[in-house]
């Protein structure tokens, strides 16, 4: 600690959780990246089916008491089809919805990722800016009562993302899986009344891409079902053999796996054009080749831009529009400050060309007298884990240590404490 004053940090072994629709990010504060990114879906199988020989469920999953269901968590276990395994998401609207499943995920995190007892570590959670009071209290209760954490804190993910980019005041554009939001942050506080949210996110791109691929007849069989494939020429019919299972994978599992497949396609191929989509311009840009798990491959030209255009061309929900709307709802005095630090975060902002296009759209809406500055971390990690990194920084700052809601405080004042202490 003696040298700690030099950099203002004081690490107290805190954990940082950043739940999202796509994944939950977990790790130790003061590290640069989360220890794990766990998909935000849980596989649930009723127990009367005999387990597959090659996996040992006793080790991999945790059974909950009431119905002795088996839970499958994390990529390794999710990606293998299991009889009757239905996949469920525990998130809804950016908030935790299914608490049973969420507890499963937390149990798993402590056991497999953190590998330490929960009562040793203060916990910092991120939450969406529109999280409801009752959900915040429920989470507080869960952490203190079930996990016996010594201290707990909740911060809005937009504020954390701003911190991660070195700002306390910023207009945070967070483009995640299910939605894109524009959140003004002032001195580390989110201005809740000026948050603007649109349902145009990564999942929309995946959906559109899937529709497009299916319409041109691409076989989207996920890699998990493919035993072998042959090298073929472009646009040739794929030749592959499927893995043999003596059961039918569930629909929800298939949907999820196809989504993962298309997600990869979306991440490698899609690009936002710098100016509003123009077929003629897009035609002139070299096509990108993509090979599907089946071995089928072909070039994708203008489609790449056409699909990604969906994030921006909507007159009311396009990213540039919600950003300027949000700034416009803030007090006039702080608008220049917001425009001068527009922080871009969220995995979906990594779609190629996203930041350029947003910058272009936004600058055309920026009042003439204001300076527009976009802050977008270059690294994919910083962008995808923006909120987590901010939490990691915050929880290991010496001056933050007085902010925690401690177990003592919880005992004395109850869960309502969270609303007062975590703005």
């Amino acid at each position, binding site marked *: 600690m*003696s040298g700690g004053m030099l950099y*203002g940090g004081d690490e107290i072994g805190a954990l940082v959780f950043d739940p999202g629709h796509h994944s939950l990010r977990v790790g130790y504060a003061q590290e640069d990246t989360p220890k794990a990114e766990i998909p935000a879906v849980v596989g649930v199988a009723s127990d009367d089916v005999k387990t597959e020989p090659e996996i040992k469920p006793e080790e991999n999953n945790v059974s909950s008491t009431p119905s002795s269901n088996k839970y499958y968590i994390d990529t390794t276990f999710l990606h293998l089809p299991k009889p009757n395994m239905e996949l469920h998401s525990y998130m809804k609207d950016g908030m935790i919805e299914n608490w049973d499943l969420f507890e499963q995920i937390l149990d798993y995190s402590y056991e497999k990722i953190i590998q330490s007892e929960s009562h040793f570590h203060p916990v910092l959670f991120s939450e969406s800016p529109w999280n409801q009071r009752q959900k915040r209290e429920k989470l507080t209760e869960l952490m203190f009562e079930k996990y016996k954490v010594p201290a707990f804190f909740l911060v809005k993910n937009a504020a954390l993302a701003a911190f991660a980019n070195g700002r306390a005041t910023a207009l945070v554009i967070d483009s995640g899986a299910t939605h894109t939001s524009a959140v003004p942050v*002032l001195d580390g*506080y989110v201005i809740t009344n000026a948050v603007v949210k649109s349902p145009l996110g990564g999942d929309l791109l995946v959906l559109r891409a899937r529709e497009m691929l299916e319409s041109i007849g691409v076989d989207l069989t996920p890699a998990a079902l493919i035993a072998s494939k042959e090298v073929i020429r472009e646009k040739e019919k794929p030749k592959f053999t499927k893995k043999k299972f003596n059961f039918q994978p569930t629909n929800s599992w298939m949907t999820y796996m196809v989504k993962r497949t298309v997600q990869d396609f979306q991440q490698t191929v899609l690009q936002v054009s710098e100016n509003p989509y123009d077929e003629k311009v897009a035609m002139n840009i070299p096509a990108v080749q993509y090979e599907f798990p089946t071995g089928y491959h072909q070039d994708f030209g203008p489609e790449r831009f056409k699909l990604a255009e969906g994030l921006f061309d909507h007159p009311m929900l396009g990213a540039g529009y919600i950003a300027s709307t949000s700034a416009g709802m803030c007090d006039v005095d702080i*608008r220049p400050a917001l425009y001068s630090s527009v922080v871009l975060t969220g995995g979906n902002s990594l779609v190629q060309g996203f930041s350029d296009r947003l910058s272009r759209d936004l600058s055309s809406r920026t009042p003439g007298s204001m300076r527009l500055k976009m802050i977008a971390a270059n690294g994919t990690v910083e962008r995808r884990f923006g909120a987590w990194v901010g939490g990691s920084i915050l929880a290991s700052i010496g001056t933050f240590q007085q902010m925690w809601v401690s177990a003592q405080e919880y005992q004395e004042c109850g869960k309502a404490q969270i609303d007062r202490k975590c*703005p």
Partner: protein
Amino acid sequence: MADVRDIMELERPPTPEITRETILGDKTKKRTSVGPKVPKRPEGMHREVFALLYNDNKDAPPLFPSDTIGNNGYKQTKIKLGMRKPRKWVWMPFTNPARTDNATFHHWRRPSDEPKEYPFAKFNKKVEIRTYTDHEYQQHLKCEGWTKEETDHMMDLAHRFDLRFLMMADRYDTERFSKRSVEDIKERYYKICGVLAKLNGEKKIYTYDGDHERRRKEQLKKLYDRKPEQIEEEQFLLGELKKIEARKKERERKTQDLQKLISQADSQNETPRKTDKKLPKKKISNPSRPSRVDTNHIFQVIESAGIKFPDFKNSGVSLRSQRMKLPANVGQKKSKGVEQILQEMGLELNPTPSEEICQHFNELRSDMVLLIEIKAALSTCEYELQSLRHQYEALNPGKSLSIPPQLLSSADGEGKISTGEIIDVVGSPGTPSNT
């Protein structure tokens, strides 16, 4: 530094040589050997190239940072590793005095370090927020439109958000109370502060003008909400305004110049006609009146109103006829004009230069030049007037601009008009000064 000197072609001070003495900082032995040989860079050779040349004075640059203190050289010196036992770090509990609950957290610390107060606690700063008692509230702080509950809520928010009024407005409990604007909250808060301060007998009482703030923000909002076209238009109009102002200034300057010209003419004619004197004065009293005179000619004229004959008084012996010679700065055109008038008047071009004749002749010719210049000015003014009239008529079809006759000089009488008359016309009381 040296590079700058090179670029500026300044003399380079002799580079201090790197010798063992200088490194050791051995100051007892003065370096005297520096002066003589610092070869100069040949003209045209690049400084970088020159720096590469071998040079006796320079030691080869050291590859290693070497410490050659003592006689052993660096070879003998060894880094002392592992001589001391490392101090231990322990995961230790601590309490933070900035917390009110005495919660203990853990962090790594050297047990050898003295346990002291948590170093970050001193950053725990709070904004001082006034409080009031029930009694005080009932007595002094009641306000229409605000219940005590709402006031309490507002003060609580002020406390929680350290007076960040924007946040207070954002997190206002709109379920229990109606929504309040930032200005409403500020108004109420500062009012309370003011009252409490007065009760405390404080001298300085701050007041907050909510209406002013509201108006300011309204304006600011309007400013920001302008559309690009509006901004463009504004820029355009601003540009136009600038142009207009520049034109106006130019004109004023020209009017002044013209006035100068006229007063000069007056002063030259002072002796014969004293009455004219009041005219230029009157004109000078309102020089800012807009003028429409817009010609370069007048401008040129000003440079040389009349003829300035050189003063021969102090320049020794000279022929008097020399004084009658037109100075070189009188242009050809003018001297031709003077000649012409002289001929018209039937005067000699070179009269006998007696003292008197010489003086009058010079004055006469000076007036003639002035006359020519004023005539030229007049005709340009008239031209201007006509063209403006055409403009006016083009812009207002069907209307015609009648020009007061005083403004028009009769073309036929031109030849006979004497200098005095022209000046009278220019400055006569009925003439608008914008001629």
